[in-house]
């Protein structure tokens, strides 16, 4: 029997290299879906794979696979609660705040309180078009984590935002800069020749390239922006 089938397959496969440069799959953020997931991770750190899949329009399994790949490459951290965030992007202790805001409806209730300080449960429920029970549940959760506070006013309970998230946002600024610098360094080490197009407190815009292919990564550096604006 003739031998050498392995080398022959290797040669046949090598013909395909023109379409995907060797090593391209290691360059994680050249992959459009991973880039998209990473962008959402910066917008909504400490989301579950399912939530990220919904945001990025992927199947949960595909999202999980890409997230694990990024976790394996130290781009992303998976915390014990099985939520994900970009490595170095948040104070680990803040994870709980983001998770609370990710709970069904809590983010919307928080935004309603922020926009209408002193709202009652009924007013919030009406403005959001949800039941009072669900507002009650979310408000209790937010209050438990000191994101809102409430006072009795006769028959009503009125809700007010606390300054907690504003303080956390201030404290985040130096971390955001360190995160951006470390990411650019990591991209450089991965051979992606990063070119920073814009870097502010709130945004990082980087062009990355491998071979002839080039992509742009557009990240928010302020994860509080989606709740505080």
């Amino acid at each position: 029997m003739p031998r050498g089938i392995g080398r022959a397959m290797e040669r046949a496969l090598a013909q395909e290299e023109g379409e995907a440069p060797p090593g391209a799959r290691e360059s994680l953020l050249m992959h459009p879906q991973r880039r998209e997931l990473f962008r959402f991770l910066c917008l909504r750190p400490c989301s579950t794979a399912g939530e990220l899949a919904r945001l990025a329009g992927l199947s949960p399994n595909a999202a999980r696979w890409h997230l694990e790949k990024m976790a394996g490459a130290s781009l992303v951290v998976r915390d014990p609660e099985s939520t994900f965030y970009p490595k170095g992007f948040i104070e680990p202790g803040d994870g709980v705040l983001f998770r609370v805001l990710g709970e069904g409806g809590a983010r919307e209730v928080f935004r309603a309180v922020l926009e209408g300080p002193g709202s009652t449960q009924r007013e919030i429920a009406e403005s959001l078009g949800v039941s009072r029970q669900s507002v009650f549940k979310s408000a209790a959760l937010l209050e438990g984590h000191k994101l809102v506070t409430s006072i009795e006013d006769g028959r009503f309970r009125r809700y007010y935002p606390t300054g907690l998230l504003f303080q956390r946002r201030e404290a985040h600024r130096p971390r955001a800069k360190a995160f951006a610098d470390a990411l650019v360094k990591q991209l450089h080490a991965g051979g992606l020749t990063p070119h920073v197009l814009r870097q502010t407190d709130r945004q990082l815009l980087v062009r990355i390239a491998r071979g002839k292919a080039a992509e742009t990564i557009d990240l928010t550096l302020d994860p509080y922006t989606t709740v505080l604006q």
Partner: protein
Amino acid sequence: MRKVRTGIFGLNPLLDGGFNEKSTTVVIGASGAGKTTFATQFIRRGLVEGQEGIFVSLDENKEQIIREAVEMGWGDILEYMDNEALVFIDASGREFSNFIRKELPAFVEDWHGANARIAIDPLTPVMWTTKDMYEQRDLIGFMLKETRKVGTVLATLEEHGTGDLTGSETVIPMYLSDSVIHLRYKAMEGNQSRRLKIVKARSTRHSEQWHPYQIVKGLGLIVDQGEFRRGSSAKIPIQLKALLEQKKALPPAMRERVAKALDLLTDDDFRGLKPEEVLTYILQEYAVEE
């Protein structure tokens, strides 16, 4: 059907002797279950028999897999690589799926009659080159059908989610392959528990139980056969044969055929069916009025 030894200690008897030659097997498991070790063991077993081996790695780079194999105590694979009996290929899912579409038919024709062992680890990135499930089925079906013409094929598949094999990514390859082995891995508070089950094996009387397995340095996967066929008796087939002898309503040619089949069976094959019941069903189907 010729059998080839799997290379996994303890597994062959559970598969009635091993994998069928030139068949396709899919090994499904979560991260940490031992899929790559399984695939390496399978390839290495063939090398020992003088078969050629191809290890297509679509995830880790090949250096990583070779390093892990050497750490496992399988340094001999380096010699097999030196004389090209074993070839490691690393490619992306995209490259491999283009290869399937464009080069594979001519490749298989060129190597018609070859008898290699081919491992594809893991198949998952190939599936993900397209979102269209019809196309996935087409691609994977074609790949399995063609590659087994030149050898015995083993593909691993990543398992995500609940572990009940219902995800579309597992269902399609499971349908299309000849055999499916499910590896289950749980790590809890420092304790690891690993079990495997043969979900299907075409033209094979296989175990249908869960079997614990271990991964042991230097040896690889070792499967505990448990109670499977251990001293399994053949009381039911013997009894059934005796009952059949007495039934004159059954045409002699038919009786002989059933008796021959019964010689190969053990009690395990009947799984709770009583000999009297089976006799009634056989008579219902074949008995002639006297």
